[in-house]
C-alpha cells in the first residue's frame, strides 16, 4: 500500500488551503497562539502551587491540534490522550473552564474532577483527555463505529503519542477498523520521546510508526507536523477517505515538545535529550514562528496585527487565571456526584438500592 500521496510540496497550494480566506488563515495562527499562551500561564500558576498532579504541556505541537481540528465538520469527533489542552482549545473550549479545571475548581470543564489529563466537551465533539496510555484508541474506534451506525458521514480523529503505539490495543483497533470499514483516523503525534525514552529505544520501525498500519491494510501517511498547512492537507485526505470510503487512516506527524514530559521532568534538558536539540527545534521548527512568517510573507497579517492578537490572547489567558482563582472548589459532598447517571438524576433506578458504601 502506498504512502498516502500529497501532490504538492508547498501545502499552501493544497486545495484545502488555497481557498482559505485571510481571516481563516489568521484564525489558524491565532488558535496556535491561544494554546501556547494558555499553557504558559498554566505553567506559571502550576509552579506557583495552584494546581496538583501532572501538567503535560503541548507547546511545540500546536500546529497539529489546530490544523486537524480546523477541518472538522458537525459529524467529526476528537479524542486524545493526557496531553490534551491543545485539542481542547482547538475545538473551541473556553480558557476559563480549562484553566479552572487545572485549579481543581467546580467551574472547570470537568467540575474539577478530571484535572489536566481529563478535559471533556461532548457538545464540541471532544471526548477527552485520557490518562491511560492508548486507552483512548478503542474509544476512538467506537466513535467511528457510532458515526457509521447512525448513518452519518463523519470521522473520529483519535490522537496518540509515539510511545502509545506500543500498547497492543492499538493493533486490535486497527484490525477492527479495517475489518469493519470504520472511519477512524489515528493521528500519531511523534514528538520523538515517550517520557525519557527516545523512539529508537522503544519502537522498532521500518520507515516509520504509521507504516505499521500496513499490517492491517490501513492507509497511512507520514508528514511534517510543524507546518499547519501540511497538517491540514494530509488530514484532509484521510477525512475524505473516511467520508467517501468509510476507511481508516493512520497519520504520523513529526513534532516536538519543548518542555518536559510533564512539568516535573528534570531530565528532559541535557538528560535524555540535548539542550541543543531543544534549541534547534525552537529556532528552526517552531510551528507558530513558521506560520507567522508565512502569513507575513502572504501579507495575510502584519506585525502589528500579530501583536494585537498576542495582547488579546494574553488578556484572555490572564483572565482565565483570575476566573479560576476566584472560582469555588467542589464541595466534599460533590465527590458522590457524577458517579451514576441515575443517582444524579434521582430517577427511580437511582433511588433503588444502595450505591455508595461508606458508613
Amino acid at each position, binding site marked *: 500500500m502506498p504512502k498516502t500521496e500529497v501532490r504538492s510540496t508547498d501545502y499552501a497550494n493544497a486545495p484545502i488551503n488555497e481557498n482559505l480566506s485571510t481571516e481563516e488563515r489568521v484564525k489558524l495562527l491565532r488558535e496556535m497562539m491561544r494554546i501556547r499562551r494558555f499553557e504558559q500561564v498554566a505553567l506559571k500558576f502550576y509552579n506557583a502551587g495552584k494546581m496538583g498532579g501532572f501538567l503535560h504541556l503541548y507547546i511545540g505541537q500546536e500546529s497539529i491540534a489546530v490544523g486537524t481540528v480546523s477541518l472538522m465538520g458537525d459529524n467529526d469527533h476528537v479524542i486524545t490522550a493526557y496531553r490534551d489542552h491543545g485539542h481542547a482549545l482547538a475545538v473551541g473550549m473556553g480558557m476559563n473552564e480549562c484553566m479552572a479545571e487545572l485549579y481543581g475548581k467546580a467551574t472547570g470543564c470537568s467540575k474539577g474532577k478530571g484535572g489536566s489529563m481529563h478535559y471533556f466537551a461532548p457538545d464540541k465533539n471532544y471526548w477527552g483527555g485520557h490518562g491511560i496510555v492508548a486507552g483512548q484508541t478503542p474509544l476512538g474506534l467506537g466513535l467511528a463505529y457510532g458515526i457509521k451506525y447512525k448513518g452519518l458521514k463523519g470521522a473520529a480523529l483519535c490522537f496518540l503519542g509515539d510511545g502509545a503505539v506500543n500498547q497492543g490495543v492499538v493493533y486490535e483497533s486497527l484490525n477492527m477498523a479495517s475489518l469493519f470499514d470504520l472511519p477512524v483516523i489515528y493521528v500519531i503525534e511523534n514528538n520523538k520521546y515517550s517520557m525519557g525514552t527516545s523512539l529508537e529505544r522503544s519502537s522498532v520501525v521500518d520507515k516509520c510508526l504509521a507504516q505499521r498500519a500496513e499490517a492491517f491494510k490501513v492507509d497511512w501517511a507520514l508528514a511534517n507536523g510543524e507546518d499547519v498547512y501540511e497538517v491540514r492537507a494530509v488530514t484532509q485526505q484521510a477525512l475524505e477517505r473516511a467520508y467517501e470510503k468509510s476507511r481508516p487512516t493512520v497519520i504520523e506527524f513529526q513534532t516536538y515538545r519543548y518542555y518536559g514530559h510533564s512539568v516535573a521532568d528534570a531530565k528532559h534538558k541535557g538528560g535524555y535529550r540535548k539542550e541543543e536539540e531543544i534549541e534547534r527545534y525552537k529556532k528552526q521548527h517552531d510551528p507558530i514562528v513558521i506560520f507567522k512568517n508565512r502569513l507575513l510573507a502572504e501579507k495575510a497579517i502584519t506585525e502589528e496585527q500579530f501583536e494585537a492578537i498576542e495582547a488579546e490572547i494574553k488578556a484572555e489567558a490572564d483572565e482565565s487565571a483570575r476566573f479560576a482563582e476566584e472560582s469555588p472548589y467542589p464541595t466534599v459532598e460533590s465527590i458522590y456526584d457524577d458517579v451514576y447517571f*441515575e443517582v444524579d438524576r434521582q430517577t427511580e433506578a437511582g433511588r433503588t438500592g444502595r450505591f455508595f458504601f461508606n458508613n
Partner: protein
Amino acid sequence: MALIEYRDALNQAFAEEIERDPNVVLIGEEVAQYDGAYKVTRGLWKKYGDKRVMDTPISEAAFIGMGVGASMLGLRPVIELMFWSFATVAYDQIINNAGQIRYMSGGLINCPIVIRGPANGGTNVGATHSHTPENWLGAIPGLKVVSAATPYDAKGLMKAAIRDNDPVMFMENTLLYGNRGEVPEEEYIIPLGVADLKREGSDVSLIAHGRAVLTALKAAEILASEHNIQADVLDLRSIRPLDEEAILKTVRKTHRAVLVDENKPFCGVSAQISATIMEQAFDDLDAPVARVCSLDAPAIYSPAVEPLQLPTPERVIEKVLKLA
C-alpha cells in the same frame, strides 16, 4: 406462563430491546452467525442482521472499548464476553473507560452499556476460565453489577440493565443456561437494587446471589425437612446497587445469617455483606455471620473435585447447624 430456559429468557430480553430501541446492538465473539457460544443469542443475527448483532475478532479490549466509545454517542451496546473470565484482557477498558469516564468528565459523558456473559466455576474449564468477578467489579464505584439466578430474573434484570444509563456488568452462569423457569408472556422489568426473598423462614437467613441461590434453596429444604430449621433465602440479584434494606430486614428477623457465595472468600461479595451486617445490625445478631464460599484456591479442573470447591448444600447446612 411459559416454562423457558434461562438462555431463552435472556434471548427474549435482547429481542424485545432490539425491537424497542434502535440504539441497542449486540456485540461479541460468535454472537451472530454462530448464535453465541452458549446459544444465548440464538436466531437474533438471522432475524436482525449484521447491524444489530455483530461478530468480532478475538480482541476484547478493542471491542469493549469500541462499545464504550459508541455508548458515548448514545448507542446502547450489549457486549458479550464469551466468559466473564476474559475480562482480564479488557480490564482497562472496563474499569477505567466504562467505569470512570462519567466521573472524570464531571458527568458530561454517559456510558449506557451492558457487558454480559457467564461468570462461574463448576464447568471444569480450569482456573483461567472460572473467575467470578462480581466482587472485582462491585468494588469499582461507577459500575453496576447484576447476577441472575432464574430465567424470570434473568429476563427482567437484563431489560432493566439495557435501559439503565450506567454501565451494567451482567453475570450469567453456564450451569444455569439450561434451567427452565416460568416467564410471563407480558413485558416486565426487574429494577436493579431490589433483592428477592426466594423463600420465607424465621430461624436463619441464607443470603446469596447467582447459582448460590439454588444451593441455598436446596440447603433450606433439607434444613426444614431434616432439622426443622426454617430459613429465609434472600437472592441479592443486584450486587451494586445493593438492597441493604432487604439484607437488614431478614437479619433482624432471624438474627442469624449464613452467606452463600461462589466468590472466593478474600474480599469477596460475602465479605462486604458480612461487614455491612456488622456495621448495621450488630446488635440484632445472635451469632456471628458465617460464610460459605468457594474453597480459596484457583479453580481445580478435576470434574470429580470441582463441584466440591463450590458451595454445596451440605456445607451450608453444616454452618447453619453450627450457628444454632
